[in-house]
């Protein structure tokens, strides 16, 4: 059965919406390098790659948990505190919650918090995304 897309009124600030678990494997690195290129200059250039993959893990969790979404949502602001970079083979757990919502100038703004952790609960990131919700 098809679920209706999540609407602005469905969000309740304070609600935990769910969690996603993803293993950081070589396929993600390979896919990232297809877009951004392979880091040059040795292993000390992997920081940007892994910090980017932390952002990507955040987006994957959002897309996995907050679904189905209406088409046309727009990402307006992103705050992202990186506590540690993901390590190859690590299992990343990301909890997604609604931290707020408001209507400004006839636009529906939804605030979502993502908290990512690695093996043994090692904190990886806290993200706060502001999305203009389409419906």
């Amino acid at each position, binding site marked *: 059965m098809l679920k209706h897309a999540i609407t602005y009124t469905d969000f309740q600030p304070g609600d935990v919406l769910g969690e996603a678990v993803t293993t950081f494997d070589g396929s993600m690195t390979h896919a990232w390098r297809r877009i951004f290129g392979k880091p040059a200059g040795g292993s000390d250039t992997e*920081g940007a790659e892994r910090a980017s993959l932390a952002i990507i893990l955040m987006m994957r969790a959002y897309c996995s948990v907050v679904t189905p979404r209406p*088409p046309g949502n727009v990402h307006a602001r992103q705050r992202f505190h990186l506590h540690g970079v993901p390590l190859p083979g690590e299992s990343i757990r990301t909890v997604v919650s609604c931290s707020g919502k408001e209507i400004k100038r006839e636009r529906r703004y939804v605030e979502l918090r993502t908290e990512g952790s690695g093996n043994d609960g090692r904190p990886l990131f806290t993200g706060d995304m502001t999305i203009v919700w389409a419906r």
Partner: protein
Amino acid sequence: MGSVNSVCAFATVSLVVDAASIQAYAELTDDFNPIHIDPVFAATTPMGGVIAHGTMSICLIWQMLQKNLGADVFKSPALDVRFLKPVREGELLTAGGSPNASAPGLFDVWVRGTDGSERIVGTLWLPANAPAALIQGADK
């Protein structure tokens, strides 16, 4: 935000955002919002056409910071960015930034499009216990 207090601009990093890279990024993030990948749908939205995923530009900011400040910049940075204007398919994106003279450990960051207009602006904070050279924006 802004450049009034900025000094010593960083070396920039650029990326051409084409349809293939947008599609690849959609697959990597599992974000298949049609505003990114469906030209017919995207044309009906206030954006007026396909736009790239905002977090693609954040990846470019990370690369720029790595280039200028080295790997230590990824020890607990706090990034805050606003997506001001959409990034269109085919654009040349350029990420840059500079230390912000108003506070140690604070940096202005930005991403500009082909026409030079700002698409993302924001700040990066480094923790107070970061190396002094890094906080001053001169690690590399």
